[in-house]
């Protein structure tokens, strides 16, 4: 076997918390990377995958420090180097592709200046040569207008293009090792495909080794040679992609894989004929900006119509900018629609939230994506849940306290949690509280806006199970907005596919993959990465279709 390019042995990284406590976040991690090999670091948030990846560049984020172990890259002992020596390695021997290129590009400098900055810092080549090399890389990464794209500012190109430009930025110094830190997580699925293909081709051409940090096993299966599964700062399992996918030995790996198994939603058989739909929407139009002649400047929703029977769930899928969150906001009246009708339980709703009666408000509740921003950080959980109880039902004192405990019990949280602040809870717990707040009103319809998107797969699956259970007990209907098709399949009966503010197709969730007719629905469904190492290379999409619909 050849000498590995990178050897990490017994790496320990500690962090100092705000209260001054020392905690160990990486607990003795060891692994090697062979020349030309792509190794994936897989794990959930808090598993330490990004911390390990950054330590390969000799960098730790504020508050963290390498406490022990060694990192060797080529002939350099990174752990023994001074900051100045490490700075010399960065960009030339090891480089970085960030999670969000949109944030990692300096908004006030032209793209070209930033892409070739590594050659300027390390004095690698004259500017003209660097620019020529950059254009070559742009071409290799399949970027449009490779000759001129460099003269633009970052806000003038799309997210998927920026992500590929950041790969050009990483490759310009011909590094031996490239670190990819969740580089496609923030992208839409149809964009992700092209970016992954470009990365794969560029890496094959450069012959460099790579570290690919991700939480998504299906994405990793397409690009990595070997997978290291991390949890709580420790290596759980390490092996070839095929072995991890098909013969995982560690229970945690199996748990991660099981989140991928399709769980089709079996709707509880309708007990009796329901008199009227829980929600009906007719020709709904909404938008943002100045109103002119009764129409807003930026029209987002265009004539959206649908109806949902009581006790059933509607999924709304689409990519960023498709108007799915706007739909929820328009139904709830947060963004009053300028045309069209919303009927909840047969009652026509006034467009503006402020003009609706308390009883109308009670019937439909909305749950937002980020519990962090939806829950007031200075209020205790008890106070957060008590407020809607007083508002809608006039509860006070001991009775209200009893109901708060009951609500916490419904979302499977201990009663004692009501004395805590949102900041003291985990992401999954916060989302449960967020959901309990909606339940406090005793609604009949709950609008869920991407409520599992910010959660780890295992936590998200538990939330979905909770939602189903509550539906059985409380006779709820959900409108479930998500960009994640498998989540929608797991809980919904019907699905609306949205594209640029319009519903392009409405179909039953169970045969979404098989029966989707509209070309955009087909493109979207075929773009979901599968747990199959050959999926990306064998995937064929009609280039015309991609050109027409993919939001690149």
């Amino acid at each position, binding site marked *: 076997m050849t000498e590995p390019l990178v050897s990490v042995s017994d790496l320990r990284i500690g962090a100092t918390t705000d209260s001054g406590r020392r905690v160990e976040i990486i607990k003795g991690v060891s692994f090697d990377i062979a020349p030309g090999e792509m190794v994936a670091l897989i794990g959930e948030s808090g598993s330490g995958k990004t911390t390990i990846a950054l330590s390969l560049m000799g960098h730790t984020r504020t508050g963290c420090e390498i406490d022990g172990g060694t990192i060797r890259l080529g002939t350099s002992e990174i752990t023994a180097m001074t900051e100045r020596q490490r700075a010399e390695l960065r960009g030339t021997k090891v480089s970085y592709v960030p999670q969000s290129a949109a944030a990692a590009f300096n908004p006030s400098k032209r793209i070209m200046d930033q892409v070739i900055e590594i050659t300027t810092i*390390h004095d690698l080549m004259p500017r003209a040569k660097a620019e020529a090399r950059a254009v070559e890389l742009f071409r290799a990464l399949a970027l449009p207008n490779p000759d001129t794209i460099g003269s633009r500012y970052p806000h003038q190109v799309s997210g998927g293009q920026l992500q590929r430009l950041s790969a050009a930025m990483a490759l310009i110094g011909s590094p031996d090792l490239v670190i990819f830190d969740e580089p496609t997580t923030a992208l839409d699925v149809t964009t992700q495909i092209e970016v992954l293909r470009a990365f794969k081709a560029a890496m094959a051409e450069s012959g460099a080794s790579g570290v690919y940090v991700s939480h998504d096993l299906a994405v990793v299966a397409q690009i990595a040679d070997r997978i290291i599964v991390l949890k709580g700062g420790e290596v759980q399992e390490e092996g070839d992609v095929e072995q991890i996918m098909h013969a995982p030995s560690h229970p945690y790996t199996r748990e991660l894989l099981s989140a991928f198994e399709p769980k089709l939603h079996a709707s509880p058989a309708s007990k009796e004929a329901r008199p009227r739909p829980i929600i009906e929407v007719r020709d709904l139009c909404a938008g943002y900006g100045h109103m002119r002649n009764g129409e807003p400047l930026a029209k987002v929703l265009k004539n959206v119509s649908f109806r949902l029977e009581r006790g059933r769930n509607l999924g709304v899928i689409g990519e960023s900018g498709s108007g799915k969150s706007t739909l929820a906001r328009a139904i709830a009246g947060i963004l009053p629609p300028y045309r069209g009708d919303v009927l909840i339980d047969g009652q026509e709703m006034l467009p503006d939230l402020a003009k609706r009666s308390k009883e109308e408000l009670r019937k439909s509740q909305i749950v937002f994506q980020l519990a962090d921003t939806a829950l007031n950080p200075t209020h205790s959980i008890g106070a957060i849940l008590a407020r809607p109880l007083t508002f809608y039902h006039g509860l006070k004192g001991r009775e209200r306290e009893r109901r708060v405990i009951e609500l916490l019990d419904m979302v499977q949280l201990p009663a004692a949690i009501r004395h805590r602040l949102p900041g003291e809870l985990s992401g999954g717990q916060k989302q449960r509280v967020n959901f309990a707040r909606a339940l406090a009103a005793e609604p009949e319809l709950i609008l869920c806006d991407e409520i599992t998107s910010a959660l780890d797969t295992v936590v998200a699956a538990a939330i979905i199970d909770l939602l189903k259970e509550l539906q059985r007990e409380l006779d709820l209907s959900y409108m479930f907005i998500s960009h994640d098709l498998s989540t929608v399949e797991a809980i919904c009966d019907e699905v609306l596919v949205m594209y640029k503010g319009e519903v392009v197709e409405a179909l039953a969730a169970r045969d979404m993959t098989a029966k989707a007719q509209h070309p955009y629905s087909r493109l979207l469904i075929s773009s979901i990465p599968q747990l199959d190492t050959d999926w990306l290379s064998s995937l064929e999409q009609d280039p015309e279709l991609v050109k027409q619909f993919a939001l690149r």
Partner: protein
Amino acid sequence: MAPSLLPWFYVVQRFALALLTLFIISLTVFFACQLLPGDVAEILLGQAATPEAVAGLRTAMGLDEPAIQQYVNWLTGFLQGDLGTSYANRIEISELIGGRLVNSLKLAGVTTMISVPVALTLGILAAMYRGSALDRVISIFTISIISVPEFMLATFAVLVFAVWLGWLPALSLSSAEAQSWGELLKAYAMPVISLSIGVSAQMIRMTRAAVIETINTPYVEMALLKGASRSRMVLRHALPNAIGPIANAVALSLSYLVGGVIIVETIFNYPGVAKLMVDAVATRDLPLIQSCAMIFCVSYLSLITLADIVAILSNPRLRK
């Protein structure tokens, strides 16, 4: 609209807003002065005046006209450069203010030239080496200065430099007649020192905060991961994105120089506009008070508008 014209559209919009604000200020200043107690004609003629004399003077001064008419007269005069006549000594106000304004602007100019470069350098250095000894020294200095009131600083400066050391004159009256550079320096030293210290302390803190905010962004971390040195990270990546907030911090601090120097001018008896306004209040010289107030507002507004325009032009999203 062509995208390249967009920033200029916002600039024009800012100017229009500034003019509107100025109009509202002129209304406020004029009618606030009208609310002051006492009849001007009676005050001017003294207690021995006959009612006929008072009535005659009122007509002559146009005080019989409705307030709106008086306001329109005053504003049109003001726009044509006619600031009116002082009640107290019958001198044209423009004449009274002219020399004083030059003096005040000189003081402000010298203070700006000293404080802005010093403050920006120290603020950026403090941000660059955050948490270091240098940063702590600068922070302790600025916080203690900000918490000391202006008149304390000025009085201390008099006590130390004029009374104990005897290096500088306690009064600045002679500055207008200063003959040599040395004398000029001496005349300005005290007010400039007191003003610069107060003004820079604020600018240092706000510059430091603005730069630190941009240092914490992912694109500055990205620069670090490209192997950039600390000075490159701060000067090339963080600073260009902090120009907007810094320009605002500088404008806010400097606007204080023109309007808020009343205490310093009074303590050092410096013959500037602020001193003039204080004297005008003592003699109930309404036209003079109005004119001084307008001058302060105009300078304040122009600085803030300038800062906004810098922020607009430095925003890359508005570039083509």
